[in-house]
């Protein structure tokens, strides 16, 4: 119980919020709008899983939003040219992994700080994309949306895919050796090295991994609507880092899990639609999200002081 107190407190907060909505704005719980909103958050969840891994490994990747945009536009163009989606899917993951490998090589290979490396790739990818696309949308044929399936089926496919990925990664992180290596490197890279783990390889690995997940997420994004906005993914890095931190993943590495990150994402994602239902001015949205993040960080800080 006490071991997962941090994660459970987020789940508790989410439960309180949902109960409050059930009392004050029951219209919030309508199946179709909720499914549409959940589908919109599905790609975010996939990227958040990758971000949790990176932060547990005591790194950070702020280039995910730009990677997401680049992969969305590239795969969108391929889909628009009539490439089969089954072929575009591995290309999306591969392109994401390649971009992640660039980050990973600079961070793990040259031992540069990840915040600086991914800041550079974030800006370079974003500006490069602006230069090439000038903000122009990619229009795709109707068959791309929902993989050509009926809307509700397509939405369920995406939501279930995201949840399945979460479950697989969450279990893998806990039970596979590779998953434990991430915690080991994030807790103490030197100790991990002495234990026979190669910290630089693990670090490289998590960057490739988040790249591939971001690529997949981009693919899950482009099949949701018939057009791709090159700006899509703008601010995604902040959204997923916030979700992960709120969910109890320690920014100092080595602690946290994906279930917490999932709860954190749900909590933050509920804020905007909840405010709309409660008819509270939109000015409050960012303020409330900020307060939630602050609360989480303060809670982590207090716990670390108690342990020290």
């Amino acid at each position, binding site marked *: 119980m006490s071991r997962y107190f941090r994660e459970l407190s987020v789940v508790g907060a989410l439960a309180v919020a949902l109960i409050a909505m059930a009392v004050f704005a029951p219209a919030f719980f309508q199946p179709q709008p909720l499914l549409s909103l959940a589908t919109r958050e599905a790609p975010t969840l996939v990227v958040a899983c990758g971000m949790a891994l990176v932060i547990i490994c005591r790194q950070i990747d702020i280039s995910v939003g730009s990677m997401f945009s680049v992969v969305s536009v590239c795969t969108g163009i391929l889909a628009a040219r009539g490439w089969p989606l089954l072929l575009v899917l591995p290309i999306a993951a591969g392109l994401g992994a390649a971009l992640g490998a660039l980050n990973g090589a600079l961070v793990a290979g040259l031992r540069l700080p990840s915040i600086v490396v991914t800041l550079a790739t974030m800006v370079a990818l974003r500006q490069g994309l602006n230069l090439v696309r000038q903000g122009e*949308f990619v229009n795709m044929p109707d068959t791309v949306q929902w993989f050509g399936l009926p809307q509700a089926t397509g939405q369920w496919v995406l939501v279930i895919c995201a949840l399945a990925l979460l479950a697989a990664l969450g279990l893998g992180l806990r039970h596979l050796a590779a998953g434990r290596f991430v915690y080991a490197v994030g807790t103490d890279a030197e100790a991990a090295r002495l234990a026979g783990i190669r910290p630089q390889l693990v670090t490289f690995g998590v960057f490739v991994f988040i790249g591939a997940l971001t690529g997949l997420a981009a693919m899950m994004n482009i099949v949701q609507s018939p*057009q791709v906005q090159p700006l899509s993914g703008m601010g995604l890095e902040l959204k997923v880092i916030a979700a992960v931190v709120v969910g109890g993943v320690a920014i100092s590495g080595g602690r946290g899990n994906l279930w917490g990150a999932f709860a954190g994402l749900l909590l933050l994602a509920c804020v905007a639609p909840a405010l709309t239902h409660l008819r509270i001015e939109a000015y409050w949205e960012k303020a409330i999200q900020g307060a939630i993040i602050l609360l989480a960080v303060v809670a982590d800080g207090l716990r670390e002081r108690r342990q020290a």
Partner: protein
Amino acid sequence: MKSLLRTFLAAALTLSVASGAFAAAASSKLVVAFLPKSKGNAYFISCKAGAEKAAKELGVELLFDGPTDSNAAKQNEIVENWITLGVDVIAVAAENKEGISTALRKAQRAGIKVVTYDADAMPDARSFFVNQATPEGIGHALMDDAARLLNGEGDFAMIVATLTAANQREWQKHIEARLKEKYPKMKLVAVRPCDDLKDKAQSEATAMMSANPNLKLIMAICSPGVPGAAEAVKQAGKTGKVKVIGLGLPNENRRYVHEGVTDTVILWNTGDLGYLTIHAGVALAKGDLKPGAKSFKAGSLGSFAVQGDNILLGKPFAFNKGNIDQFNF
């Protein structure tokens, strides 16, 4: 590598200047230079189409050049080249209001007539600004169209880019003023920001519809908001029951307009903007258009009002099912 690049750029620049000079020298025609914010942008390409039409009618030489991306420094460079070249008129859509003005003042001192269009420079750096739309014109066009679609009665909601952006505030002010003044039976029930993201606009519109079952129309006043809202309405199966209108570009909304999800997309006629700009520039160079003029006649488009040093393109243009396929930007 860097020096190689520089050499290449310099060579390319010299070449472009030389070819321009050749064009200028080869005819005694007036030479009008037309500078977009960025030359690959479909919006400006559609402005150029109108500019070309005007140049042909007036028998003037049209030079079209601009940065490949929205780059204020590159705009200055191009203007400097045109000054060296000795063109007669420069028409500019300014990327940076202050930034471009120094170069434009220099052009004026060299006897070149300067007009701006789409985005203005400092008032002392040009003679006239061809103003494509006043905030009041846009606000009224949107509100009037919403009222037309709802027969002046019912709930509607708005999606804005951000709650604080100056242009959005300005448009919103005029929309609300028009609402209060003319449509007492209509009610604005929610205003939500989308951060200029289509995907967020979609989520916001989804939540607005479920929170307001009587919602009849969503008005998006930032361009990504219009297709975002339309996708939300379509996914909710409320096509026709919740109407969508907004400020945006035809290409981003074409499919939703054809599907009947989006009724009207409001902007200005970009071809007319280019056409009017060239007519104004040439009239200025020929002395037909002078400061203090109250109106201005531009070829086949007829007469336009002049307010101070702004030539007004007039009422915004409404793209709908009937005409949207005539525009590609």
